[in-house]
């Protein structure tokens, strides 16, 4: 049985993003105390190697087990083992070790509260930065998708092209996940999520068309649409950075209309799957509308 708790990194980041400063301080305090105790035992067993090695084995397996079982606390469990090992081998005096732990804990708790004090500004900047990064990932993904349509090697090097899309998607997911946590809102309220879904709708074309040579008929139009989309994502970033107030979708609209004209004059007749193109064009129109609404949705 595979449980969600196996997503170690996901849970750690989720925990770091959502735990309150008070909670984090408590965890740090508990970690410090655990380190002290584990160090006392390590020191007590140090005189006899078999016992000492066995104790460190038990400590490591226990913390690793609980770190994997409660993955959101992995970092704390791992710290207990790591710091115990370092201090145990450092040949410091007891006094130095206690100072080390107490001052380390105090600095960590202080930093947590400092972040809490700076939260209003911190949060606004973090959201803005995260939005820009998400849009950047979306831009990268749209370009990777259009490369699949315009590159003649797509069918031969399918894995290479699909891997590129996968990498961009993973970037997008990690950034938008952070954005959802930072904004503490539902995903469907974010225009970035809707734009991604629409891109996925458009992306179906590459699978629905059996003969990719058909794309050579509309290659220029597709490249122009990709460029216009990239410009729109750039505009969106400017809006977030408050360098601009509007998103100009006219060029994209114009390019979509050109593709639509080409569809009725050439592709409709030449393609074996004209409906796939029509659905693609509808998806592009929906994307354009969503981009128009971007400023309002922010």
């Amino acid at each position, binding site marked *: 049985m*595979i449980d*969600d708790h*196996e*997503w170690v*990194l*996901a849970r750690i*980041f*989720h925990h770091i993003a959502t735990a309150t400063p008070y909670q984090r301080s408590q965890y740090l305090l508990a970690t410090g105390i655990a380190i002290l105790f584990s160090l006392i035992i390590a020191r007590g067993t140090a005189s006899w*190697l078999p016992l000492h*090695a*066995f104790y*460190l*084995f038990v400590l*490591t*397996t226990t913390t*690793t*087990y609980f770190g*994997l*079982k409660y993955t959101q606390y992995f970092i704390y469990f*791992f710290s207990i*083992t*790591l710091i115990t*090992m*370092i201090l*145990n*081998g*450092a*040949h410091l005096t007891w006094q130095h070790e206690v100072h080390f732990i107490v001052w380390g804990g105090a600095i960590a708790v202080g930093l947590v509260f400092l972040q809490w004090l700076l939260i209003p500004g911190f949060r606004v900047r973090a959201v803005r930065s995260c939005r820009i990064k998400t849009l950047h990932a979306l831009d990268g993904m749209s370009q990777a998708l259009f490369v699949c349509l315009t590159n003649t090697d797509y069918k031969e090097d399918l*894995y290479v092209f*699909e*891997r590129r*899309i*996968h990498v961009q*998607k*993973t970037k997008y*997911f*990690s950034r*938008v*996940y952070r954005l*959802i946590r930072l904004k503490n809102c*539902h*995903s*469907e309220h974010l225009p970035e*999520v*809707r734009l991604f*879904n629409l891109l*996925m*709708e458009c992306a*179906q074309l590459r*699978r*629905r068309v059996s003969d990719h040579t058909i794309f050579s008929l509309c290659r220029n139009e597709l490249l122009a649409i990709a460029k216009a989309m990239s410009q729109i994502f750039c505009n969106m970033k400017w809006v977030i950075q408050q360098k601009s107030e509007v998103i100009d979708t006219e060029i994209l609209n114009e390019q979509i209309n050109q593709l*639509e004209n080409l569809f009725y004059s050439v592709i*409709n007749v030449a393609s074996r799957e*004209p*409906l796939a193109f*029509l*659905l693609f064009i*509808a*998806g592009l129109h*929906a994307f354009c509308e969503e981009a128009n609404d971007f400023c309002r949705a922010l």
Partner: protein
Amino acid sequence: MIFAERFETRQVFIVGFAVLLAVIVNDYFSFSHAAWMVVGALIVAQLARGAPLRQSLIYCVVMLVFAILLPPYVIDATRNRLIDIGMGALIGVLFQQILFPMKIYPAFRVGVLPILRLLQNDLQREIYFFSHQLSKQIYLQQSSERMIALLQSDSLYPEWVYAVGFNPGLRAGFRFFLIQLESIVEIFFSLHALIGAVSDAIDLDVISSEIGVVLKNNEYLFGTLIDHLSECKSQKTNNSIDLTGDIVALENALEQCVPVSLELLTIAPSAMILIAIVRDLKDLREILLRLIESSMGNDAL
């Protein structure tokens, strides 16, 4: 080894034994007379599943750089630290990559099963949505967020299938599976976009019962795939299931409520949404059948 089957157990033993050996070796052969060897073994043994040897080397290099930057800046002391870290890393690699090497097939299954289960759950929510048991808003809230939460981390996703050194004999099969899985994920997001665009003006009721049948059959196919991958012995077999008739019935129902001409379709956006939903469901069926066929035919999977 039995205990090496489950990831957590395997990882606990790898880390534990690596540290145990490092503590003993450190006691006799340590150059720096500190715990660098133990720390090296502990960190290198912490690798995620499926991580290639390259990942161990990256961890090792990071530690070596750290050891160089740490005072005192005496050549002898730094050299001793580097030797100890190197030995520790070697112990970590020994346990992680050689004594308890990852089993490719179980690791691959472990990587893809949570995604398949999530998609199956999403399909259930779609069934509820089309049968009016779930509102559009709640459907989108639950589905998108869960999918993003799962897919945002690639710690479990079998990325190693794409690694340069991955077994060339197995590569094509595994990559094929992953690409098909990605296609399914994309279709689900596309469906989210289409369901999000469904408004009161669109009469879903005309095809909702047919969509329900197709979705249930797709869910059954997901179940079959999951059962096969998780080696569940109690595989449900339903011979009465009709995997072509339901799609034909859906297309027939669709033809009765949307214009046939492509020119007319462009002025009927609601019809376009219905067509796109049906097309996505058809594509989903096709890919699912392809996946089941390939995984059933491949004993490895």
